[in-house]
Each structure stands twice: as structure tokens, then as C-alpha cells.
């Protein structure tokens, strides 16, 4: 029979089994691979695996590992460490009578901390299809990324093959899988390109599935990413994350939820923007024609605080189960605050919210922008105490945001802006049906909430929010 064994000198169990190795090499066809010293074991023929390629390709985690092959070279079975009985069963012969029955093996050098990524980058690089860009060692790595136009203005993490391979460990999906067509250049986008941009953005591999789902959602036709990019309006994509994964990766849904300081929030939103910039070619001054933009166009991502909420999450409202993890993409402007420290009943608080929601876009603008109302725990408590579900709040808001057309027509209030005069006699809703959504997030102290207004072309003429499960 054919066997191979992988050993390292710096392992007491490997030292222990040297007599057995010598016996096997005498009786069978045994190839010995040494991870740290080609002189070990002494007196036998050893193949140098100090580069760890064989160990990597055989996915060795423990030394010694003894592998049995059939005549075609296919692996039949393997044993790890020293277990006298297992070795005897595998080889079908009596072995190691002088040895103890059992000794655990040692860690393979191929699984030392940081080593799998290095080996993956070295030996699996053919799995990556992207062009390799050579940068002189004279150049500063981060400056080189700026010079090549890969940055949104902030430093990016240089996308070495090692980092990209490590990022790809965050998904079981194949690097070459195409997830969609990215505007404005209409370029096919692969998992690999998303992973490279996730590296640039500073993501951990565990965030990659969220980034992939965000890109997939953004590329759905109803989200209208091309128009959102090209518009002169303020908006850009906002990612709201729901479900257990948001908590597992440590996303912030509480204090400073729309601010800085949380790596997952910061880098997931940024990775999406970098995919649009680098893969799609969408850049300010190019197809991005926004007059102002908004600070969220660097990164705009947060999680809904579902813990202890009295409300269904946004994802459950959209038809997903509580155990599903989702992203919801919304074409979003910046944030506008609503301070109400005195309301203690839901009607009063809702009237505050409605007054603030009324001015989205313009106090006379209707059926144009969607909006997301981000309700803080202290404001949510008022609804909780009154037994109002999210839908009750939305129904009430939509009711009192039905406005007399006479207030909205051009010229009313001495303001030329407004809707056509013929609509003066109508009662008109501020938001399209389903255009107003609510999430619960923010710090536990503060009777403040927040409005995230949407693109002035919300709905079927422009962008419809898209929710997608993270896989």
C-alpha cells in the first residue's frame, strides 16, 4: 500500500513514532514530509515540506498525520496523532508494541495563527481571477491605492492576495460567482470583486455575507441604483441590517447608532459604496451628479435594535422570519432630528413626528420621497405603554399627514414652490402607500428620534426599498 506521513521535529508525538515510521518505510511505500527539518526523522528519506504546500493541499491540521492511498493515489483514510489501534487498523499490521497506546498529536505548522491565509494566498491564488497590480516597494501602499483612484477619500486597506483570500473565508460562495451588473458601467460583479472591495473598506471576513447581500439588494432593478447614483438629489444607499447576524457580528443598533465608532457599521456601508465606485465606475463628478451628496455616502449602515422591542422588526414586517438575517436597502438622505421631551401619549408624540415628517423635501412636497422614522427606545416606550404596534403608528401618521391641497399648491403661503393649482380641493397624502417605514434604534437615554428622508424619486418611478436575506 501507499502511505504518506506528515511530521515535524518540534513535536514529541512525531519523535515518539519515529520507530514506527522506519518500520513502515521498510515494509511499505511510505513518503515522509517534514514541516520543519528535512533531517527529521534521521536516517530515512524525507521530502522537504517547510514551504507547507503538501500540508496545505492535504488540509493537515495535526502532526503526525498518516494517510493511506489506493493504487490511483486517491486518499482512502487517515489517522492523526498516535493511536496504536487506529494505526494498526489503517495499516493492517502490528505496529509500535513498545509505545504507549495513545498520544495526541501536535498542531500542524500549516494551521499556525495567520498561516492558513498566507498559504491560501500562496497556493490557491489561481482561484482569484482579478488582475494583479504591481506596486513598487518605493511606493507607500496606502498612497498607491489613492493614486489608482480606489479610495472614497479616506485611506483604504491595501488589497493584497492574502487579505483577499482571508476575506473570502467569510463566505462559502465561489469567488467567480456573478451576483449582478453594477451601474453605471454595467460591469458584472463577482464575489471576488466584492471581497476585494470589502478588504479596501476594512471589513472582517465575517461581515462579507452582509456586504454581498447589500450589493445584491442594491443591484435589484427596483432599487434603481443607477438613477440613485446619477441623480442631483442628496441620496445614496443606506443598509439596515436585521436579525441574529447583526448581533453576532457586533453591529451597533444603540447609542450613536448613526454615528462613527463601530467597525461593522462603518465598513459594510463603505464596502457597498466602494463596489459602486470601483466595479461600477460611479464617481462624484462622473455619473454621480449629486449637488450635495450627504455624509452617509462614505458609509451608511446600521442595525435595528430588536432586543426588548415591543415591535416587529422591519424584516418581519417585510415577510421574513425572526430568525432570518436580512439587509434592507433604502435610497437615503442624511438624518434630521426630532426632539420631543414632553409628549407622554402616543397621539401627541405622533403629531410631533408628523410635523417633522411634513417637511421632508419641502413642506409642500408630497408623494415624492419615502422616509424612515428611526424611533428611540424612550419614544418607543410611549407607544409600548399605550399598546400601539408599528402599524398603528404608521396608520396614525399617514392619517394626519393627509394634507389639504390648498396648503400645498404653488403660491400658497407666499411660496412659489408647490403642486398644481387644480389639486387645491383635494386631500393628499404626504407619503405614497408603504413609503413610510419605522425602525427602532438609538441610545437608551434621550427623547429624540430621527428621520431619514428618501430620494425625491421614491417608488416605482425611482427607488423602492429592497429587503434581502443574508446567506
Amino acid at each position, binding site marked *: 500500500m501507499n502511505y504518506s506521513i506528515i511530521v515535524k521535529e518540534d513535536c514529541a508525538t512525531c519523535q515518539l513514532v519515529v520507530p514506527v515510521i522506519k518500520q513502515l518505510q521498510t515494509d511499505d511505500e511510505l513518503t515522509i514530509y517534514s514541516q520543519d527539518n528535512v533531517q527529521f526523522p534521521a536516517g530515512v528519506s524525507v521530502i522537504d515540506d517547510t514551504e507547507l504546500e503538501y500540508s496545505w493541499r492535504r488540509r493537515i491540521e495535526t502532526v503526525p498525520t498518516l494517510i493511506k492511498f489506493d493504487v490511483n493515489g486517491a486518499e482512502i483514510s487517515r489517522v492523526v496523532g498516535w493511536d496504536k489501534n487506529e494505526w494498526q487498523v489503517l495499516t493492517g499490521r502490528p505496529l509500535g508494541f513498545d509505545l504507549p497506546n495513545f498520544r495526541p498529536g501536535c498542531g500542524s505548522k500549516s494551521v499556525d495563527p495567520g498561516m492558513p491565509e498566507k498559504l491560501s494566498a500562496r497556493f490557491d491564488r489561481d482561484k482569484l481571477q482579478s488582475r494583479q*497590480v504591481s506596486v513598487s516597494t518605493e*511606493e507607500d501602499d496606502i498612497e*498607491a491605492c489613492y493614486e489608482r483612484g480606489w479610495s472614497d477619500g479616506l485611506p483604504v486597506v*491595501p488589497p493584497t*492576495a492574502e487579505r483577499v483570500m482571508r476575506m473570502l473565508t467569510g463566505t462559502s460562495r465561489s469567488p467567480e460567482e456573478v451576483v449582478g451588473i453594477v451601474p453605471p458601467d454595467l460591469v458584472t460583479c463577482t464575489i471576488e470583486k466584492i471581497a476585494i472591495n470589502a478588504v479596501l473598506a476594512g471589513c472582517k471576513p465575517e461581515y462579507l455575507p452582509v456586504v454581498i447581500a447589500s450589493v445584491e439588494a442594491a443591484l435589484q432593478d427596483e432599487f434603481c441604483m443607477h438613477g440613485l447614483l446619477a441623480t442631483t438629489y442628496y441620496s445614496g444607499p443606506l443598509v439596515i441590517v436585521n436579525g441574529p447576524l447583526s448581533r453576532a457580528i457586533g453591529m451597533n443598533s444603540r447609542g450613536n447608532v448613526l454615528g462613527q465608532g463601530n467597525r461593522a457599521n462603518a465598513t459594510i456601508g463603505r464596502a457597498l459604496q466602494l463596489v459602486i465606485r470601483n466595479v461600477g465606475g460611479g464617481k462624484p463628478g462622473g455619473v454621480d451628479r449629486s449637488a450635495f451628496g450627504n455624509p452617509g455616502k462614505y458609509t451608511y449602515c446600521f442595525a435595528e435594535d430588536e432586543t426588548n422591542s415591543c415591535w416587529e422588526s422591519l424584516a418581519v414586517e417585510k415577510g421574513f422570519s425572526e430568525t432570518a438575517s436580512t439587509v434592507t436597502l433604502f435610497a437615503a438622505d442624511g438624518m434630521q432630528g426630532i426632539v420631543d421631551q414632553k409628549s407622554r401619549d402616543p397621539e401627541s408624540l405622533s403629531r410631533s413626528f408628523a410635523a417633522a415628517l411634513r417637511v421632508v423635501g419641502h413642506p409642500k412636497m408630497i408623494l415624492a420621497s419615502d422616509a424612515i422614522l428611526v424611533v428611540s427606545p424612550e419614544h418607543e416606550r410611549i407607544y409600548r405603554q399605550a399598546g400601539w404596534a408599528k402599524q398603528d403608528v404608521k396608520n396614525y401618521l399617514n392619517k394626519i399627514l393627509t394634507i389639504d391641497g390648498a396648503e400645498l399648491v404653488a403660491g400658497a403661503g407666499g411660496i412659489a414652490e408647490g403642486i398644481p393649482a387644480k389639486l387645491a380641493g383635494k386631500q393628499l397624502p404626504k407619503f405614497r402607500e408603504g413609503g413610510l417605514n419605522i425602525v427602532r434604534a438609538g441610545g437608551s437615554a434621550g427623547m429624540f428620534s430621527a428621520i431619514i428622508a428618501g430620494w425625491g424619486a421614491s417608488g416605482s418611478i425611482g427607488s423602492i426599498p429592497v429587503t434581502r436575506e443574508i446567506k
Partner: protein
Amino acid sequence: MTIFMDPTSERAPENRQPLPRPADLQGKTVGLLDISKPKGNIFIDRLEDLLVQKGLTTKRYIKPTFTRVAPIELNQQIAAECDVVIESLAD
């Protein structure tokens, strides 16, 4: 040599490209940068004559010394005031 994986659509060449050239100089302000090499001013004077004859606006700049890169303030001034720049080498 460091190798990075290209994050882009790979439509542009790998090597950095110069900025796009203007189709013509009509209406442009042309900066003339003398790097302070001997006789660089003579070369620039002649270029300026030719450009002015074509009706173009020119602006003159001088680097303090040819031995060092231009001061950032000078780069910023030229970028703010000119559409294109011609830099003279002479001896």
C-alpha cells in the same frame, strides 16, 4: 514589488495614465514654469511670445531651485490659476 488584487472593473490600463489632454488651448490659461535652470527663462520667453501671438493667456512661475521639487504652495497656485502648464528644462 508588492502585488494588489485589482478592485476595479479592469477597464483602465494597469499603469497610471496621464490626465486627458485638452483638444486645443483655445480660451485656456497656460502656466509657464521656469524651474530655475540656466537659460530656462529664454526658452520660456520664446514660448510665451508664441502663445500670446495665438491669443492665449499666460502666467509665469519660477521654482526657487531646480534641485528640489516645487513647493506645495506653488503647485497649488498653478493648479488654481491655470488650465495647463508647460515646464521648461534648459541649460
